[in-house]
């Protein structure tokens, strides 16, 4: 039962990952690509981490997975912000 729930969570996370990647490939400009990527991927990782937590019996590893998830969220927000700011600055220099 818990295995079925875990597989469901992991596969719904994969749906978000795939839609984020398709958004990265298909959307017209950089800012909409970042928008698709940063949000969809973090939801995908959250769902995959939830599924892995259901399968992992050791408590300390579960805590570690939650820490990894928060770290990836912070890292992704910071990197997206830096990439968008660098692109905006470059656009302003071109004008």
């Amino acid at each position, binding site marked *: 039962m818990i295995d079925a729930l875990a597989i469901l969570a992991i*596969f719904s996370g994969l749906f978000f*990952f795939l839609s984020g990647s398709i958004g990265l490939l298909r959307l017209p400009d*950089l800012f909409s690509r970042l928008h698709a990527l*940063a949000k969809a991927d973090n939801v995908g990782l959250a769902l995959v981490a939830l599924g892995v937590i259901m399968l992992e019996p050791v408590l300390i590893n579960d805590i570690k*997975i939650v820490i*990894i998830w928060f*770290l990836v969220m912070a*890292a992704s927000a910071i*990197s997206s912000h830096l*990439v968008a700011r660098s692109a905006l600055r470059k656009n302003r220099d071109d004008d």
Partner: protein
Amino acid sequence: MMSGGDSTSILTIALLIALNLLLFSLLIGLFRAWLGPSIEDRFSAILLLGTGGVAMLLILAILLQITALYDVALVLALLAVVGTVALTQSESNHD
């Protein structure tokens, strides 16, 4: 690899399929890194590789029962943001 009853092998197959789909999603991201007209598009592909790599390592840790892979995922999450920060800062100092 996990051994045991019927439900365990279904779980193993489901996790292997999930791993392959995740790899496919990273391949789509690499395609954007190859196309990507500006350097910021390539940064965003690196962002996708970081998040997707963490998800792959979490699934691999469950699949192979190697708990050290959680630490690898933690380091990968950190290194992805360090790489992006270094690249964007060198870009902005350039002009």
